[in-house]
C-alpha cells in the first residue's frame, strides 16, 4: 500500500465510458461528471466507442496527464483488465461503474449493476405474465457485447425451465431502436402467433413496440425491455411496454465519484464489489420511478 | 517474314476485317493504307496479340502462330506502336519504356541507372531532348508519341508495326523516325507502316497494301504507283482536290490578341507578347516545331490558363474576359483540342451524346431532352462528315481513331461558332476525309467564320491558310500571306529563334 508515499495529484477525474452512442451511457457519464464537479474536481469524459483498443488509448492518454482517479465503465470484462492493470501500476485508482472487470485486486472498487440477476427478475415476471406458455422471440444487443451476453443468459436461466415457453426466433438488433423495429417487423411475418418479446435494452423494446403497433398486435404481444430509460418508463406508465429492468446509473455514477473523492482524501479500504440491484419496473410500481432512477 | 490467311474479325454490329490475306517481307517497309475505319488498326491488334479471338491464321517466320496475349507476340518478336497512346501518365519516360521488362540486379532490385542510361541513348537517337526522368504526364502528345516509338525500339523485334506513328509529330521528328526505320530495314527487319500522310509513304515505303471496308483490295510496289492512283484505290473513286480561293482580306476583324503572355514558374514564358488578329472569313494557319507553344496559344485564348496568362483578347473590337472555356464558348470561340482522348471526347459515351454535349439546349423541348431531335442532329453530322459508325448509339470508344476525330469537330459545328480554334485538326484523318475537312473549313470561312488552325503538316498549312503565322519558342517569328509563303521560308522562320 503506497498510499502515504504518494504526492497529491491534481483534482482531476477522468470518466471513461464504453460508448456515448447510447443515451444510457451518456447519462452515466454526465451524472458522474456532475457529481465530481460538485465535489470540486475537474472532469473529462472519454468515449471508448465500444472498442477496447480505443479504451487502451484513452487510458494511456489519461496516465500521461496526471488525473487523480478514473471513473470507469469498461467495454469488456476481460479485455479491459489490461487497462485497469496499467492504471494501478501508475498509481491511479480505478472505480468501475455498471460493468465489472473479471479480475480481483486491480480496480479499487466496482459499483456494478448486475445485468444477470436483473434479467432473472424480468424473466420471472415474463413467465408470470405469459403464464408459463406460448411462443416468444428475443432481440439481442450488439453481438459480442458484455451486456448482450449477461442479459440473455440471465433471462434464459429462468425461462428455459418452462418447456411450454418456446423461443421461436432470436435475432440481433444492435441495441438500436430502428433496427429493433425492422427486425421485429420481419419476425412478425414469420411468427404472427407470438405472445412476448424480450429485448436486450429499452431502445430495441421501443422499436419492437412500434413494429407491433404497425401490425396491430400491440395488445396481444407483451414487450419486455432493460435499462429503465425515460421513454420506456413513460410507455410502461401508458401500458405500452410491459416491464423493464431499472438500473440506477445515477446511484452508480455518484457512488463512484464519491468513492474517488474519499480516496483522494486518503481513504483506502473500499468494498471491492458493490452490487446495485436492478429493479423490476412494471405497471404496478412504475409510479415510483422516473427515467434512470427512483423518484 | 509474316503471312496472314483469311483473317476475319467481327465486333457487335461491325465486321472490321473480312478474309484479309497478306504478306510482309523482311528487310522491307510495307505500307498499309485505307480510309478511316478500313480495319488497319484492328488487323495490327490481331497481329500483335491484342485480340486473341479471330478467324483465320497467322504464319510468322514460317511457323503458324496464335498469340494469347501481347506478351506472347513480344516474345515471338513482334513489336507495335499503337495508334492511340498507351503510356502510364504518372510514371517517368524510363519507367514507361521499360515497363514489363525492367532490368533487375542479382538481388531482384531494379537497376535504375542502367535503365536510365539505356533510355537516354534511345532518346538521343530519336533527338528527343527531355530528361528520361520526366513524368509522361508532362509531355505533350508529340513527345509522348516519340516515347511510344522508343518503347517499341527497345524490344528490338523482327517485325515492328507502326500504326500512325507520325500523327502527332512534326517534319523534323518524322525525319529522325525515317532514319531509324532505314536502319532497321538495313538490319533486315520487317516494318509495317500505317499513315494517312501519303507523301511519307512515297519516301519510306517499299510496298503497299490497300485495305477497304475490311478487305484487301490490292498490293504492289511503291515505285509502280502514283499518288493519285493510290488515293483512288483506297477511296474507290476519284477525289477532286480542294481548290483554294482567297477569301478574307478586307473583311471585318473578328478576333484580336494584344500582348498575350503565358508565364510558367522557373521556366521561360510559354508565350510572350503574342499579337495578331483573325478576320471574318479568314483561315489563319499557325506553323511551328513541336514545343513552339502553339497548343498553349490556343488553350490560352480558350481560357484554359486564366491564372498564368496576361494580355488582351478582343472579339469584334470589344474586350473579352475569358476565365474559363464556358466564357470563350459563349463569345463564339471554340477549340478542337490536340488530344482527343484526353480533352476531346467522353469515350465511354454514345456518339450522339458526344456530338450534342456542347449544344444540349438545341435538342431540348420544354426543358426536356428530346431523343429524336438528338438522333437527328447526330445523324446529320455522321452523314455530313462521313463518320464511319454502325449507328449514332455506338460507344465512341469503339470508333476508329479518325472517326473519333471527326466527332470532336462535329460537336462544335452545331453551335456555329464565330471563331474556330483547330489544334492539329486532321490528325489521324484519311486523305479523303482530310480533303473534305479542307472544303468544310473553306465553306465555314465563306460563311464568315474566322479559323485559327495549328498544324504540324506544312503542306496542310500551305493548302488551306489565307495567312500563315510561324511560332518558335512562344513567339511569333514570321507572318506570310498565302502568296508569299513557301515551304522553305516558313521552315526557316520556324527554326530561327529571333
Amino acid at each position: 500500500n503506497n498510499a502515504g508515499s504518494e504526492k497529491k495529484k491534481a483534482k482531476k477525474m477522468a470518466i471513461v465510458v464504453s460508448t456515448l452512442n447510447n443515451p444510457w451511457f451518456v447519462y452515466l457519464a454526465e451524472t458522474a461528471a456532475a457529481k465530481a464537479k460538485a465535489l470540486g474536481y475537474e472532469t473529462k469524459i472519454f468515449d471508448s466507442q465500444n472498442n477496447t483498443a480505443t479504451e487502451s488509448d484513452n487510458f494511456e492518454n489519461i496516465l500521461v496527464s496526471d488525473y487523480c482517479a478514473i471513473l470507469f465503465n469498461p467495454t469488456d470484462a476481460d479485455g479491459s483488465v489490461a487497462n485497469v492493470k496499467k492504471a494501478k501500476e501508475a498509481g491511479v485508482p480505478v472505480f468501475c461503474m455498471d460493468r465489472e472487470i473479471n479480475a480481483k485486486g486491480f480496480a479499487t472498487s466496482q459499483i456494478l449493476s448486475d445485468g444477470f440477476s436483473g434479467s432473472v427478475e424480468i424473466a420471472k415476471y415474463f413467465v408470470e405474465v405469459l403464464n408459463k406458455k406460448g411462443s416468444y422471440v428475443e432481440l439481442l444487443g450488439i453481438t459480442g457485447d458484455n451486456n448482450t451476453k449477461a442479459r440473455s443468459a440471465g433471462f434464459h436461466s429462468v425461462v428455459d425451465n418452462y418447456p411450454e415457453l418456446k423461443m421461436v426466433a432470436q435475432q440481433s438488433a444492435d441495441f438500436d431502436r430502428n433496427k429493433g423495429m425492422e427486425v421485429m417487423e420481419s419476425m412478425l411475418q414469420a411468427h404472427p402467433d407470438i405472445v412476448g418479446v424480450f429485448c436486450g435494452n429499452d431502445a430495441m423494446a421501443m422499436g419492437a413496440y412500434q413494429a407491433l403497433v404497425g401490425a396491430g398486435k400491440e395488445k396481444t404481444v407483451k414487450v419486455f425491455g432493460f435499462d429503465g430509460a425515460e421513454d420506456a418508463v413513460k410507455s410502461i406508465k401508458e401500458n405500452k411496454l410491459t416491464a423493464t429492468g431499472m438500473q440506477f446509473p445515477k446511484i452508480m455514477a455518484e457512488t463512484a465519484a464519491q468513492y474517488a473523492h474519499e480516496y483522494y482524501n486518503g481513504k483506502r479500504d473500499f468494498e471491492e464489489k458493490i452490487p446495485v440491484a436492478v429493479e423490476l419496473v412494471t405497471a404496478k410500481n412504475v409510479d415510483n420511478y422516473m427515467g434512470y432512477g427512483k423518484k | 517474314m509474316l503471312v496472314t490467311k483469311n483473317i476475319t474479325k467481327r465486333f457487335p454490329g461491325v465486321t472490321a476485317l473480312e478474309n484479309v490475306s497478306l504478306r510482309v517481307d523482311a528487310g522491307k517497309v510495307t505500307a498499309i493504307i485505307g480510309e478511316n475505319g478500313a480495319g488497319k488498326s484492328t488487323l495490327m491488334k490481331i497481329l500483335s496479340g491484342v485480340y486473341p479471338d479471330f478467324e483465320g491464321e497467322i504464319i510468322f517466320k514460317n511457323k503458324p502462330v496464335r498469340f494469347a496475349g501481347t506478351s506472347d507476340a513480344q516474345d515471338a518478336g513482334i513489336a507495335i506502336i499503337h495508334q492511340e497512346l498507351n503510356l502510364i501518365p504518372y510514371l517517368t519516360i524510363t519507367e514507361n519504356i521499360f515497363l514489363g521488362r525492367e532490368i533487375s540486379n542479382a538481388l531482384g532490385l531494379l537497376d535504375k541507372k542502367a535503365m536510365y542510361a539505356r533510355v537516354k541513348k534511345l532518346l538521343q537517337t530519336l533527338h528527343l531532348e527531355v530528361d528520361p526522368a520526366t513524368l509522361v504526364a508532362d509531355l505533350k502528345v508529340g513527345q509522348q508519341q516519340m516515347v511510344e516509338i522508343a518503347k517499341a525500339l527497345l524490344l528490338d523485334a523482327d517485325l515492328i508495326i507502326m500504326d500512325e506513328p507520325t500523327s502527332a509529330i512534326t517534319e523534323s521528328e518524322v525525319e529522325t523516325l525515317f532514319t531509324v526505320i532505314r536502319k532497321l530495314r538495313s538490319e533486315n527487319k520487317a516494318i509495317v507502316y500505317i499513315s494517312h500522310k501519303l507523301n511519307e509513304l512515297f519516301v519510306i515505303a517499299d510496298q503497299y497494301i490497300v485495305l477497304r471496308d475490311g478487305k484487301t483490295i490490292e498490293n504492289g510496289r511503291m515505285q509502280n504507283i502514283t499518288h493519285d492512283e493510290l488515293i483512288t484505290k483506297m477511296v474507290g473513286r476519284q477525289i477532286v482536290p480542294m481548290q483554294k480561293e482567297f477569301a478574307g482580306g478586307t473583311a471585318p476583324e473578328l478576333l484580336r490578341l494584344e500582348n498575350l503572355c503565358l508565364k510558367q514558374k522557373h521556366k521561360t514564358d510559354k508565350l510572350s507578347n503574342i499579337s495578331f488578329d483573325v478576320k471574318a472569313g479568314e483561315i489563319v494557319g499557325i506553323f511551328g516545331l513541336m514545343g513552339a507553344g502553339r497548343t498553349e496559344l490556343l488553350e490560352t485564348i480558350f481560357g484554359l490558363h486564366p491564372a498564368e496568362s496576361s494580355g488582351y483578347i478582343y472579339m469584334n473590337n470589344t474586350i473579352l474576359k475569358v476565365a474559363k472555356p464556358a466564357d470563350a464558348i459563349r463569345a463564339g470561340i471554340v477549340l478542337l483540342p490536340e488530344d482527343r482522348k484526353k480533352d476531346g471526347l467522353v469515350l465511354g459515351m454514345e456518339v450522339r451524346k458526344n456530338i450534342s454535349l456542347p449544344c444540349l439546349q438545341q435538342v431540348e423541348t420544354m426543358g426536356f431532352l428530346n431523343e429524336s431531335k438528338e438522333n437527328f442532329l447526330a445523324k446529320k453530322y455522321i452523314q455530313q462528315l462521313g463518320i464511319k459508325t454502325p449507328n449514332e448509339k455506338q460507344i465512341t470508344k469503339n470508333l476508329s481513331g479518325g472517326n473519333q476525330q471527326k466527332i470532336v469537330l462535329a460537336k462544335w459545328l452545331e453551335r456555329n461558332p464565330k471563331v474556330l480554334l483547330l489544334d492539329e485538326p486532321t490528325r489521324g484523318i484519311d486523305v479523303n476525309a482530310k480533303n473534305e475537312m479542307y472544303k468544310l473549313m473553306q465553306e465555314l470561312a465563306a460563311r464568315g467564320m474566322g479559323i485559327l488552325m495549328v498544324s504540324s503538316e506544312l503542306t496542310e498549312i500551305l493548302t488551306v491558310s489565307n495567312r500563315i503565322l510561324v511560332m518558335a519558342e512562344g513567339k511569333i517569328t514570321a507572318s506570310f500571306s498565302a502568296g508569299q509563303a513557301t515551304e522553305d521560308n516558313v521552315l526557316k522562320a520556324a527554326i530561327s529563334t529571333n
Partner: protein
Amino acid sequence: MNLALHKTDFGKLQSLIALFILCIVFGLLSDKFFTVANGLNVMRQISVNICIAVGMTLVIITAGIDLSVGSVLALCGAVTAGLLKHGLAFPSINLFVGFTILGAVLAGILVGGLLGFFNGFVITKFKVPPFVATLAMLTIARGLTMLYTNGFPISSFGESFTFIGAGWFLGLPVPVWIAAVIVVAAILVTKKIKLGRYIFAIGGNENASRLSGIHINRVKIIVYTIAGALAAIGGIIVTARLDSAQPNAGTSYELDAIAAVVIGGTSLSGGRGSIWGTVLGALIIGVLNNGLVLMNVSPFWQQVVKGGVILLAVIIDKLNTKNE
C-alpha cells in the same frame, strides 16, 4: 469496354436475375416470404435506403462519393424533431418561433441541403478529394447531432407527424410513396434533362466536359446538395417511423447505400450507372435482410451468408454480362 457498354444496357436486367433467384430461394425456404404483408414490409424497410442511395448514385456517377449521408440523416432527423418539439427559442431577445410539421420538415431538408452544399463547395473550390471531404462531414455532422440532442433521443410527436413514417396511403406505406416519387424524379433528371447528361459527362471525362463548356463545379455542388437533401428526407422518415429521433441513427448507412448503388451496376469510377439499377440493388439487400430474419438464421451466420449472397449476386451479374 464492350463489357461497360453492355453493363449499362443490361446491368439492371442482370441484377434482376440475381433478385429473382434470391426471391425464389427464400420463397422455397419460408412460406411466409411470398405474402403481401411481407412484400410491403420489405418495401417499407428499403425506402429509406433508396432515398439515400438515389442521391449516392448521382454523386458516384460524377466519380465522387458521399460518406456523410448517415450522420446527415441523423442530424436532420434530430433538427426536425427538435423544431417540432421545442421550436426555436432566442431567450436573449425573448423570441420564440414554433414550427408546423411542414415547417419543421422543410427546415430539416434545408439543413441537409446546406450540409451537402458544403461538401460540394469544399470538394470543388478546394479540390479536396470527395472521400476526405465527406468523411470529415461524417464526423462533424455526427458531433453536431450529439451536441444538438445532448446524446438523448427526442421523442413522441403525435399521429400527424408519424404518418410520414408509419402511415398508409392508397394501400401503400407512406415511405414507399416518398421513395417512389424520389426515384421517378431522379430517373427524369438522369435521362431527360441537361443536368443529368452533364453528370454522366463529368464522370466520364472531366477534362472533355470542361472543354465543352460545362460548369463542372456548379454541377458537382448541385449533386452533393441533392444528396444531402435526400439524406435529410431519409432522416425525417426514420424519425417519423420511430416517433423518435435517435442521436445514433443512420450509423454506417453510407455502406448500405453505396452497396445498393454498386450492386445496381453503377461504376465507382464514374460515368456509368442508373437509378433503376440502384433500386434493384436496394431491393436485393432488403430482401436479403428480410429473408434471413424470416428463416431465423443465427445472427452470426447471417453476416456470413449475407456477404456470400451479395458476392454471388454480383458474380452472377458479371458472368452473364461477360458473354456479351
